[in-house]
């Protein structure tokens, strides 16, 4: 058996890859559900009911998808330029805490139309700053950004913990470690009555389109792709590699930071250390499932959100631990990698 490089890759094949990957991941986690002693069909039915069964569950799924779209975009933008930003988690947290710091008092007197954009920028800048640290270490000291961003995630979490127990502690929370809440003028408008779905979804969707257009239609988009495919050739062709990478890092870190900002302004109102159930890490899976396509990120984020929200309901109904969603999402990353391999190579016997 040997693998032979395909000369062309058909669009159909590229669309099949994520579908096949998700199907394979669902089958494999089905094995675990069976192991847990539940009916697999029943469990998956409850996952769908949990994610789509009612108006409020649909709203909840979309609410969950919002930060995932942004962290997925953050990873996709960086990965395309072969900048392995695994620090979406930390950048999310810094973006969130930055918004809590600024949005509780400094912008409290402003009208919402001004305060909200300012806070978006603040959150994005927070994420950006953390990513630029990692990029600086890579460019200046040849530190692998995978390891530095991973380590910075823990530093960021401890920083948030320090803030919510120290400088930004909410004095009204009876000693519970949570940050001061953002002022009412910074709360994102609701999209549906009596649900948590907020305008952040629109922002995330718009940004996916913007990122798509930047990548497909601008010089910078081409340059970042070239830097990823073959840095040496790109430099030879006159691509300013350093500048391109800085810009990619800013966009990537900024998107992850913005995700944190939006989660605070749209859902939580304040920051606690458990504000992110691994949004940054899920973003990596989502970017890969989307094959780094910004529009595909939307669909992939919806898949992950369906699994997470659905599994909560399923867990209550049939008693399979809701961690099954994390397992399925992680498995879909591995199966997607294999599926992508077979879009590049065919097997010859």
């Amino acid at each position: 058996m040997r693998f032979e490089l395909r000369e062309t890759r058909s669009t159909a094949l590229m669309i099949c890859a994520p579908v096949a990957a998700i199907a394979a991941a669902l089958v494999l986690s089905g094995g675990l559900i069976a192991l847990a002693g539940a009916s697999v069909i029943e469990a998956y039915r409850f996952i769908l009911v949990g994610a789509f069964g009612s108006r409020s569950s649909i709203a909840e799924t979309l609410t969950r998808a919002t930060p995932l779209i942004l962290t997925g975009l953050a990873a996709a933008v960086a990965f395309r330029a072969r900048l392995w930003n695994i620090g979406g988690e930390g950048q999310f947290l810094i973006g969130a805490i930055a918004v809590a710091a600024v949005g509780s008092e400094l912008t409290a007197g402003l009208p919402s139309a001004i305060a909200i954009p300012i806070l978006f920028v603040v959150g994005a800048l927070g994420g950006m700053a953390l990513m630029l640290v990692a990029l600086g270490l890579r460019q200046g000291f040849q530190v692998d950004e995978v390891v530095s961003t991973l380590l910075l995630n823990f530093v960021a979490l401890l920083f948030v913990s320090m803030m919510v127990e120290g400088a930004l502690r909410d004095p009204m929370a009876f000693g519970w470690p949570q940050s001061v809440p953002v002022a009412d003028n910074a709360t994102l408008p609701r999209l549906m009555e009596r649900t948590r779905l907020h305008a952040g979804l629109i922002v995330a969707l718009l940004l996916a389109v913007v990122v798509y257009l930047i990548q497909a239609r601008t010089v910078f988009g081409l340059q970042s792709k070239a830097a990823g495919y073959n840095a040496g050739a790109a430099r030879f062709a006159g691509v300013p590699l350093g500048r391109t990478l800085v810009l990619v890092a800013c966009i990537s870190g900024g998107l992850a930071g913005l995700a944190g900002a939006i989660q605070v302004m749209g859902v939580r109102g304040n920051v606690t250390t458990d504000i992110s159930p691994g949004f940054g890490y899920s973003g990596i899976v989502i970017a890969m499932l989307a094959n780094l396509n910004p529009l595909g990120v939307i669909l992939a984020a919806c898949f992950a959100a369906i699994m997470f929200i659905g599994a909560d309901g399923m867990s209550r109904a049939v008693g399979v631990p809701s961690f099954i969603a994390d397992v399925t999402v992680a498995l879909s990353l591995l199966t997607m990698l294999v599926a992508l391999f077979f879009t590049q190579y065919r097997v010859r016997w």
Partner: protein
Amino acid sequence: MELIAILGSEGLWEAVLRIATPLIFGTLGALLCERAGVLNLGIEGIMAFGALIGWLAVYNGAGLWTGLAVAALSGALFGLLHAVLTVPLGLSQHVTGLGITLFASSLAYFIFRLSVQIEGSPPTIRPFQPVELGPIGDIPFLGPVLSSQTAPTYLAIAVAFVMMYVLFRTPLGLAIRMTGENPHAAEAQGVNPVRVRFACIMAGSALMAMGGAFLTLSAFNSFFPTMIQGRGWVCIALVVFASWRPGWALTGALLFALVDAYQLRLQSALEDAIPYQLFLMAPYVAAIAVLAVMARRARVPQALMKPYRRGER
């Protein structure tokens, strides 16, 4: 003055050896994989799974050594998965490793929730007890420090010396290092690079899982999610610090544990003046600093992260 007095205390050095043990296992495991040319970022998840499965085995009545062996076996299986994806298929070692980490850790939490239906405090086991050293225990300072350690700590140190010997003094070690430097040359010498990489990744991952299991079987006596807390990533940084040499890996892990143990004691000494989170950041910041200093001068195995395909350049 108090800060220096801490350095001379027996308690500190007892803690150093205890904290270092999972790092020694993990760093040696990662080092072995990388010497054969494959980066294994599955380490964080493999440690988590090893911690769970070793503990679960003992919780269900197996002996402590059996628990450790079960953990090693599970690590080898995850290593096999990593090897299949990165060696014959040549997938991105970064992304595959992260995928393994996400998969192994979420699977560990899933199995934990499934098998232990409890609320409140997690169930415990009776962990490894300190080894009786006889007359050595009477030596001042060294005696008390050594006689508070458990057997896996000595095993970890022994593995470092064995790996030192095997890598640099045996034909097998030569084959491993050749595979990591230049698999084509290795193949020309009659070494099968694919087989070497499979073996190294599986053995290395087994060591990682044992490092995780040490946490639940010796350092603590129960499992809880997020207990690995980035130790795996620290190990990846330590491999660079060690310049891919087992002896330096051992030294690096001990130095690192010294930083960690020292910050824990400083934390209680300076409790009011400085927020404790700054101390907890110390190990991660130290790891990044180590990378910044060492990365440029490190002698990386030349074929690291380059997939090998027979007859292809």
